[in-house]
């Protein structure tokens, strides 16, 4: 019989797959609409999720490419985080969950989220600088959230590592 935690983990595994698929679609759609907008400039006002970047594109096509690149990059990094989460679910052995592989994956998620947070900070600063020049970019970069997420996951990774040490000590207690 499955415990409550095991049932929750099964649900989370399914949710991780759904989120991963959603993020893949989002990244692909953003990338496609950006590539299309490069050849068809009028497309910049109806990018993914009704994002209107036509003002930015008319102001400076390089700035438009940089901002779109940041959006796509951050979205791709979020997709990679979802992929790592799925990988945790496929790697983890619930009868012996504290393994070095899982700890490495959790730590990797925190590092990737930290990098995404740094990207988002740079993008938000650039976006602010552009808005001072009269160009508004209707996009929430969520840099703080990403950095907070990275910090929390990093702490969890360290606790997890300590768990592995305790488990190995326990296994070697005769």
């Amino acid at each position, binding site marked *: 019989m499955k415990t409550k935690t095991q049932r929750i983990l099964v649900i989370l595994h399914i949710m991780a797959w759904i989120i991963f698929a959603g993020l893949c679609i989002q990244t692909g759609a953003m990338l496609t609409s950006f590539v299309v907008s490069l050849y068809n400039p009028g497309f910049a006002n109806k990018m993914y999720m009704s994002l209107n970047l036509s003002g930015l594109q008319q102001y400076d096509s390089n700035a438009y490419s940089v901002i779109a690149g940041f959006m796509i990059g951050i979205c791709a990094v979020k997709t990679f985080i979802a992929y790592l989460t799925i990988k945790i679910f496929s790697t983890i052995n619930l009868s012996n969950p504290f393994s070095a592989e899982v700890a490495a994956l959790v730590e990797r998620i925190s590092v990737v989220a930290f990098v995404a947070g740094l990207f988002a900070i740079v993008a938000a600063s650039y976006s602010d600088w552009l808005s001072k020049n009269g160009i508004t970019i209707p996009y929430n970069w969520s840099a703080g959230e990403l950095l907070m997420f990275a910090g929390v996951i990093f702490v969890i990774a360290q606790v997890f590592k300590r768990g592995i040490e305790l488990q*190995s*000590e326990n296994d*070697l*207690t*005769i």
Partner: protein
Amino acid sequence: MQIVVNLDVMMAKRKMSLNELSEKVDLTLANLSILKTGKAKAIRFSTLEAICKALDCQPGDILEYR
């Protein structure tokens, strides 16, 4: 400086094999081997007591601080 397990020395003195000790103290050969090779991180008092009883010795005969 470390704790050294002299289980093999005591077993040789008592002329007891690992299999025989394993049966007497109710430990698996794998666990006894971990203990004998010094890979163990800790030893339970109950295990130490069983080994001392089987080998008719004191804990100090098995564990040594160098």
